[in-house]
């Protein structure tokens, strides 16, 4: 890739990165921009923006609920692109767009990639886009519009496939700490130690960001032992349900970071 993607430079610039997930249009429709600006103030390293989907299979109740609220608020891919377009000049960190495949296909894959590029999205993560489907219908478009393909790997991904995914991905490799939907209450990060150690020993091209089962400072630190990035999702969405946007960001980022 010829462009210096913001994700690539961010991962080159700092040893430990913190990322938060937000659902676009949640809790209120304009909160996408409000939160992104607050996260800039809080010095976040990168952000995943989730496009809501009515039937998201990967998500547990907390994020599902946020998707439902966002959809009721009127969030669509079109609206999200407009929101990002208007706020992008005020934020400097990389943005990863995360969403289910169907809304993107209905939007039009090329039109989607072009718009992502125009509004300054750096990476795209589509959980139900399989590697082979990516290679067939998305890869050349991602390259054309300088989008980093972000892929997930899980404790069940075989080593051979993991290396294959690593070879196709760029920006970072999203390491799911467990086989679960988001926000699963019955799993803890420390249970993933052996798996994370196994991944650490592999000769991967991409830096790693670890997600799932991370909600406290201790867990962020634990994740940083095995990957450069730590991603927090459901815990932040829960926080947003309790507090207003700016306070939620300030408190939560402080809570997760040593300094």
């Amino acid at each position, binding site marked *: 890739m010829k462009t210096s993607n913001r994700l690539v430079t961010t991962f080159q610039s700092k040893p430990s990165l913190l990322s938060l997930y937000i659902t676009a249009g949640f809790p209120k429709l304009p909160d996408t921009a409000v939160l992104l600006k607050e996260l800039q103030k809080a010095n976040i390293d990168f952000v995943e923006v989730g496009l809501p989907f009515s039937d998201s299979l*990967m998500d547990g109740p907390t994020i599902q609920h946020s998707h439902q609220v966002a959809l009721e608020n009127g969030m669509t891919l079109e609206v999200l692109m407009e929101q990002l377009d208007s706020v992008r000049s005020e934020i400097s960190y990389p943005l990863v767009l995360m969403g289910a*495949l169907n809304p993107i*296909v*209905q939007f039009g894959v090329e039109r989607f990639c072009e718009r992502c590029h125009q509004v300054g999205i750096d990476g795209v993560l589509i959980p139900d886009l399989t590697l082979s489907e990516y290679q067939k219908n998305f890869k050349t478009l991602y390259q054309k519009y300088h989008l980093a393909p972000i892929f997930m790997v899980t404790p069940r991904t075989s080593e051979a496939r993991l290396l294959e995914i690593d070879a196709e991905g760029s920006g970072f490799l999203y390491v799911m700490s467990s086989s679960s939907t988001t926000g699963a209450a019955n799993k803890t990060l420390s249970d993933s130690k052996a798996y994370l150690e196994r991944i650490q020993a592999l000769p991967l091209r991409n830096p790693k960001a670890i997600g799932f089962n991370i909600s406290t400072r201790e867990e962020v630190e634990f994740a940083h032992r095995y990957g450069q990035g730590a991603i927090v999702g459901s815990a932040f969405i829960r926080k947003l349900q309790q507090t207003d946007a700016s306070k939620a960001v300030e408190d939560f980022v402080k809570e997760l970071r040593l300094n």
Partner: protein
Amino acid sequence: MKPPVYRWLFLFSALPIRFFSSAKPIFTKMSYQVNQHGFYGPYGGAYVPEVLYPNIEELQQHYQHILRSERFQKEYETLLSQFVARPTPLYEARRLSEEIGARIFLKREDVCHTGSHKLNNTLGQVLLAKQLGKRKIIAETGAGSHGVATATVCALLNLECCVYMGEVDMQRQYPNVERMRLLGATVIPATSGSKTLKDAVNEAFRAWINEPEDTFYVIGSVFGPHPYPDMVASLQSVISKELREQVPAITGQQLPDYVVACVGGGSNAIGSFYHFLDEPSVQLIAAEAAGKGIETDYSAAATFLGKQGILHGTQTLFMQTPDGQVKEAHSVSAGLDYPGIGPQLAYLHHQKRAQFVAVTDKDALDAALLLSKIEGIIPALESAHAIAALRQLSLAPAQVVVVCLSGRGDKDLETYINYRSTQNTL
């Protein structure tokens, strides 16, 4: 249309699944079947998150081999005959024939053990899961028929069983909830979205994601990621396999003029059509649930109101908003209350191999009452859609029409009682 020589070549090059080791030639030619990449034309495929990739890959690699193995076939055939009570009869419904104006034959899937065709599929899938060494079975259910059929086989084969069911469906099909519990299964309400079949499927997928190791997801219809649509179609194809022998013996005609079945996801329809797909003289009719009418917002007629997209791991036709959110379906019948249809059916629609008709709640209810009264058969509400569809066809008196009576109506008794109390005529 392919010239005949090519069609015979397909017979040897592709891999038809053979049940019932028989000396007779297999009927299936493969023109409407899944290709090696898991697609039916533009439909199908396996769009699953990476966490389920190993499960789907394992299934893709093994399902054909296991289904065709002698060990599987022997056990499956024995249980189909001794436990499911197959073959099911083909019955000439004389009074209905008079009413409709054609020779109507009912394929009596309603007399299967557990009261519907669903057991053909769950028996096969659970046997397969056992061979793969799985310990726990999960399933989704709409009307409860698939849930009951899954719970039944899990009781028979001693496996843990967990069924996801929409909260709304749990209320409207309460006896089936208790049946599943009696059979030792755990029933978990799906409380998201419309709280019906689509949401039960979501919850089952999420449960599988959370516990993928030794769990097997028994999908109840011909949808989901490849190889599910093909696997379920193969298991349900026993319906048309029997019809190929019964039709000549009972009707005196080599082939029926029509085969009619209702479509939710489409498993009884595919099962009934399967061995007739390459017989162009046989007209295939799929009855979708129009709900309150396809012009209203309360419908489940996917070929009329749907658009191509990706839902539940497959590319198919389903009802969605312009920006790709899945729309909630409506049908009085919980088993048809699903916004999409299986990819093979979408392909049959695309190729115009099957004709799709939309049947309203009211027409289905009337058909159910009619069949009960004049034939002594209380059909499932789902199957009543197929009966009602007969009135939309222009039939001649001598024509042979096979209708798949996919299930019996015990589960719908309350709906029928309520509906009947509002009617004066019947």
